[in-house]
């Protein structure tokens, strides 16, 4: 089972290594980890996709909460959150295949961001399934490189993850 955790952390050097270190040391598996600064420049937000059962996710949450730099953690419900990932895909393209690829790109509402004689580079954002589907379709042309950001997620509606650590999260 996959879980998406949204984690507010202090924007300090070394926080990422603390979080990553905790995962390896406690034997938790991360599927992806994306991090960037928030609306408050002193705070960064990590979106961590964890693979495991309820026990693992509870332990991950509790252990993360013990890190002094971690301000708040929320487990996101996929139904109530928007989840996106960005991928850049470099695929083989020649005069015969180029137009097919462009068509596929349009169907996926993806963008061509770079063209060369032998390749096309496609930018796509969306949930994991959409990106997987595009990669699957492009495989027939020969994929040279894929770069993915890992998932980021935000709750739908008015809900926000505020800075104050409330009790129900502990």
């Amino acid at each position, binding site marked *: 089972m996959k879980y998406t955790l949204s984690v507010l952390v*202090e924007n300090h050097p*070394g926080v990422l290594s603390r979080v990553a*270190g905790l995962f390896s040391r406690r034997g938790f598996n991360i599927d992806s980890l994306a991090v960037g600064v928030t609306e408050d420049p002193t705070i960064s937000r990590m979106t961590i996709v964890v693979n495991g059962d309820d026990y693992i996710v509870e332990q991950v949450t*509790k*252990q993360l909460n*013990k890190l002094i730099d971690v301000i708040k953690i929320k487990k996101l419900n996929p139904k109530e959150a928007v989840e996106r990932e960005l991928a850049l895909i470099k695929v083989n393209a020649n005069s015969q295949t180029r137009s097919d690829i462009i068509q596929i790109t349009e169907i996926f509402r993806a963008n061509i961001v770079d063209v060369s004689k032998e390749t096309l580079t496609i930018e796509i954002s969306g949930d994991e399934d959409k990106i997987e589907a595009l990669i699957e379709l492009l495989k027939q042309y020969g994929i040279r490189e894929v770069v993915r950001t890992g998932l980021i997620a935000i709750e739908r509606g008015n809900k926000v993850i505020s800075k104050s650590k409330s009790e129900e999260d502990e």
Partner: protein
Amino acid sequence: MAKMTVARAMVEVLKSEGVEIIFGIPGAAIYPFYDALYSSDIKHVLVRTEQAAVHEASGYARTTGKVGVCVATSGPGATNLITGIATAYMDSVPIVAITGQVNSSLIGKDVFQEVDITGATAPFTKHNYLVKDPKKIVRILKEAFYIASTGRRGPVLIDVPIDVQMQEIEFEIPKEIDIPGYKPKEKGHPLQIKRAVEAIESSKRPVVCSGGGVIASGASQELQILIEKQKIPVISTLMGIGSIPTDHPYYLGMIGSHGQKEANLALRQADLLIVIGARLADRALGDTKITDNMKIIHIDIDPAEIGKNVDTNVPIVGDAKQVLSEINKRISERKDFWAHEIKAQKKVLPDDDKLHPYDVLREISRAYNGDYIITTDVGQHQIWAAHNLYIKEPGTFITSGGLGTMGYGVPAAIGAKFGRPDKEVIAITGDGSFQMLLQELATIKREQVPIKVVLFNNTRLGMVYELQKKRCTGRFIATCLDGNPDFMILAKAYGIESMRLESKEKLKEAIEIMKSHKGPFLLEVVTSPDEPTIP
């Protein structure tokens, strides 16, 4: 606001935190701090290896309830602290460790005596800091003391580059500490407390398992009220020994793979286990399986401990003292103590003319009547001490429970004696453990620390020797300590009085000599290698 160097500011903050004593060794990357220390009233104890500095700070912290402070230089000084820091982390001991670091412009270039100590200690410090901005030093030190001494306590390390130590800053102590990601919760949830009360009252065979958290939170009195009202037998982890007096009629002993039979028996028969300030790791549970028939109430200040090793029916996050006093307000009285039969089973130890370790420990208990602080090292003697010593008050049995660090005992005793000079401090050790940090005899001599060391010498790494005897059909490898020094001559070399005890007839006399001696004293007890951990 006054202008001063960072080094001076560090000393000022230590003073404002009430620090009276620091354990450490200076070095090139920490000399500005030491220079600032020169003109302060804070006592500095020069140890002979940095690991001992942490253990001494730990012994001090565990006997005073204050934060222990230790200092080392960069590189090897810092790495030598590591075992001590990990030991303190596993046993939740409040320590602030200060290390020097190379010039901040050289960090990452692998220069002389450079090591990434914040990276290295991240897994076993509660938090750590590399100070890059001189202006932040005061706040960081204040935070460090706050973090180390609140919630589930633990070690915090601060690494200060030498150029930062020398910079001038405006000194001002912040009025309050607010760390957004650190809000320890001390009060238990009222609903869970209500559920706990119901569970205790409706149980037939409740058992309390008392851990180090009970001692750390100062909850012994509250615990006694609860168990006396509800007539609950108490078992303890190694760290929990002393949380109630070991001669209390409801105390059944230590649990686990090296525990006492009565305690394990009670654990197996319980229908409700009330775990307080303990994590119930592998050694504590031993062969005992927690079954579905047993309900569990788990009280711990660290939410991450609850549900980690055992499933819990009633989780209560909070400080043991506060939670127990809330429970006590609501709990009724019970008529009968269910564990009479278990209690009556007390094992009789062989009483022959040989000198057994338990004879020695029982004689010490009798002679001092529990008026002492005991520290132990790690090995057979640790278990002998845990089973046989009379521990009267909480915080008077100090041992490396979680990490099991050999070498802990003697330095911890030194720290304990500095913390509680009014108390007799006795380190119980073995020849294997003792030799891991025996250079601290020099610290004892230099500082004239009047501690007593009882050294069980069986010329073995006894615990492993015994394991090889049982599990490897006597294929003994690397457990015989041939080449041990003559400990009498060794003590003499350090100018410490000593005595060797070899026979039972001399036992009373030997303990009397040790007890009446004013200064430091080493009592070597010649012990048979075949003396089992649990007779």
